[in-house]
């Protein structure tokens, strides 16, 4: 039985360990040291970033038939620490040196993406993966979808340039990761991995921890199992430790103070950016972008604040529990509530981004001219925006706290999400009224309506303000 005095002492220790409004917590086992670590999650974010770099670096189509495009992409997805720790990563910040050395092994070792994709770890929620039909069998998995996307990139890259008709005349597109059906695989791959690896791991694995049972020191490390699991979820979210110190513009790399304006900041002034604490990866930037999109509205969102507070207070409680060596019912309830708030707000950042890209795709379709693309950019923009929309939307199925699974929103269930993904289909509808090479009933007009239906469902599921939805 832990006395009130003991609880007070533990909380006092935890408070004393907190330095400002930062995700910074001293170890209960060595008060001089930080108990926060998640380099494996940083490594996986970096692998996704480098995979994108690899896609962007592919030469114009057609690339040589002998090029092992799939192998080059699998290098990151199925990263082999044993062969590649000594190789340099491509991730870089313009003119800004990093604390981590230049090789993968300097960031972390033994990490890859395939081992942590939904379906491999953890198991698929409800035992199913849904929302993408093309190229899949009756029992698809996220890993199989990534494999399919890689194979499609290989095939596209080795094909002739894409010829399209625009209002300004014919255009020839040599981008290797685009398809004539309007798919941007570079965007699909990146956004899908953020959902199927980072979001899935954060919400369906680490935030699902039995935190009462996990309030024990993990081996000889400076943290409890619960603290570390919480940190790993935070690492997948991707925020810098001093996330609240950034403005939304800065997190979105859209302006702000000079030293903060690119989504990172040298918080400790050592002249180096520490990827483990001073850079904002992945979905953490989407939250800020969507908050920016509602600034000045009647009911602006506060996703950045809501999600960080949840991660912060949950970790605070876990740190207190570590100091106390006990976790009471009240704290368990609090931590559970913070886990849910973190996961749901994280998902709102993603779903609001899906809404944003529905709006972009709709605008792209508005630009069609007499059954043709307005220009080449109209085609590439449509492909990019659609792929971001679908790639992010597929990720919404990986969170056990999702409103599509929780039953907390009347009229919304998993079928609602399946309907949203089905309405999007596996490709955009092009100016000629085709989708994925097949005639689409009702053409562009019907597809625009379908996307609005999908947007309405998202608005209902997350109880978004209509003004925000319209403006995102």
């Amino acid at each position, binding site marked *: 039985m832990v006395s009130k005095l003991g609880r007070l002492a533990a909380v006092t220790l935890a408070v004393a360990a907190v330095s400002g409004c930062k995700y910074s917590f001293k170890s209960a086992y060595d008060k001089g040291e930080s108990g926060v670590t998640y380099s494996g999650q940083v490594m996986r974010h970096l692998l996704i970033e480098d995979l994108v770099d690899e896609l962007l670096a592919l030469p114009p189509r057609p690339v040589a038939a002998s090029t092992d495009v799939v192998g080059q992409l*699998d*290098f990151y997805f199925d990263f082999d620490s*044993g062969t590649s720790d000594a190789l340099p990563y491509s991730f870089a910040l313009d003119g800004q040196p990093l604390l981590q050395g230049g090789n993968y092994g300097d960031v972390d070792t033994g990490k890859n993406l395939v081992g942590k994709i939904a379906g491999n770890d953890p198991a698929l929620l409800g035992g199913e993966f849904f929302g993408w039909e093309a190229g899949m069998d009756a029992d698809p998995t996220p890993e199989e979808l990534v494999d399919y996307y890689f194979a499609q990139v290989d095939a596209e890259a080795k094909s002739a340039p894409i010829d399209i008709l625009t209002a300004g005349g014919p255009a020839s597109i040599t981008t290797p990761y685009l398809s004539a059906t309007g798919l941007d695989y570079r965007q699909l791959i990146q956004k899908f991995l953020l959902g199927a690896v980072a979001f899935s791991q954060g919400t369906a694995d680490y935030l699902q921890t039995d935190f009462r049972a996990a309030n024990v020191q993990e081996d000889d490390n400076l943290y409890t199992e619960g603290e570390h699991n919480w940190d790993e979820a935070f690492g997948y979210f991707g925020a810098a430790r001093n996330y609240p110190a950034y403005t939304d513009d800065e997190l979105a790399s859209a302006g702000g103070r000079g030293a903060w304006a690119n989504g990172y900041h040298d918080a400790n002034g050592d002249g180096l950016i520490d990827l483990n604490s001073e850079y904002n990866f992945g979905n953490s930037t989407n939250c800020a972008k969507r908050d920016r999109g509602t600034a000045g509205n009647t009911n602006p969102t506060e996703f950045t604040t809501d999600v960080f507070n949840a991660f912060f207070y949950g970790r605070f409680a876990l740190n207190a529990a570590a100091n106390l060596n006990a976790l009471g019912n009240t704290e368990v309830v609090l931590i559970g509530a913070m886990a849910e708030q973190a996961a749901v707000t994280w998902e709102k950042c993603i779903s609001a981004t899906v809404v944003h890209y529905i709006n972009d795709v709709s605008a792209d379709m508005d630009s069609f001219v007499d059954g043709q693309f307005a220009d080449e950019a109209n085609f590439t923009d449509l492909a990019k925006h659609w792929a971001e929309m679908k790639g992010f939307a597929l990720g919404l199925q990986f969170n056990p706290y999702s409103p599509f699974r929780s039953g907390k929103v009347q009229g919304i269930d998993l079928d609602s999400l399946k309907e949203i993904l089905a309405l999007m289909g596996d490709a955009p509808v092009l100016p000629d009224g085709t989708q994925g090479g097949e005639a689409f009933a009702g053409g562009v007009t019907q597809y625009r309506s379908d996307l609005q239906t999908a947007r309405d469902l998202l608005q209902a599921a997350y109880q978004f303000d209509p003004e925000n939805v319209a403006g995102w």
Partner: protein
Amino acid sequence: MALGLTLLCACTGGGGSGDDEAVPVASPEQFDYFGMFVNLADEVIVPNYRQLATNTAALADPTGPLGDYCAAIDTEEEAAALDTARLAWRDAMGLLQESEVHQLGPVADENTGLHDRLIKPADTNFSACGVDQSVVLGREPDFDLSTRLVNQKGMGALEYLLFNESLAHNCPAQIPETRDWNERSEAQRKRWRCDHALRIAADVAEAADAVLQAWLPEGGNYRAEFAHPDQHEAVIGLLSDGLFYIESDVKDRKLGSVLGLHNTCSQVACPDRVESLWSALSLDNIQRNLISYRRILTGDEGLSFDDMIASLGLPGIAERMVAQVDDALALLDTIDTPLKIQAQELLESGQADGCVNSAANPDTTQTVSACALHGYLKHITDTLRTDFVTAVDVDLPDRVQSDND
């Protein structure tokens, strides 16, 4: 395939089931646990390690079959020498497979990592690229095999180097060491691979010898710790955990995940998950696993679990377990089509029904023989995880707590 069981004369105890029902059995209180452990150590486990050490040492010997093959490359003797080297690998692999069912004591000590030097852990993927990279790096004077990960070493890496018919590397373009590999001459690539095979064989042999020495009285004498009359509950638990290799690794990993009968394979079949991808000896591995399982269950002619269970008044359980493993071994004797081929045919057919039926009714439906084998293995493991653990009063190992067929 013949069982190949050597019925060793046991100096450490009598008993045995099968035809000896008339022989009086001891009561639980009187059961000679010490005799059982001495029998298993002296007649099953240590002889297995001794033979493994001998065979792997021969494989690593520069003047042995592998060294002979290296010397014969690009000569008229190359093909014959390769066959001999492959046979030597096969013999050693068979012994290693037998040892997999008694992973206890020194070989299971994670601090020494001996097991993983013999064969990579089941939960890691083999890195063909890592081996290819090591082949090139091995030409450097400061190359240190101990710094390479376990999924690039052991008997699996040797198999890749000896049996893979393709000399092309398996690395992505980002790996600098292998960029010019495919342009090298065929003879050079064979020589470099063979040289690296000798390095790996030496590491395997060293690990096998270390395991053996750790058991021997003149070495680490783990035998004395194992065969200790005061620790029979703990040792029974270790042995029981070892037997569950048949479930976690043989039924689920080596067969289930290959044939689409385990939830780790989401397709009709996953042929590339066979254990021995290049030698086509995956079913031979399973045969040796089962032979070892049977020997530990029965102790050959000496005391073991069958006698222990009989002493509890439940001889029928052990008899059923022996009959079940004999069913599986008898079926294995009739299978000629390698596991990978069977899995490929399943995948190409797109139909899982035939496999599922064979697995569910192995006595009557052996349309897909490997799937029927899975069915027989399920018979074994169903008894193992119910009647056996109840009779000998042990817990299920963590790794088989849930059944994911």
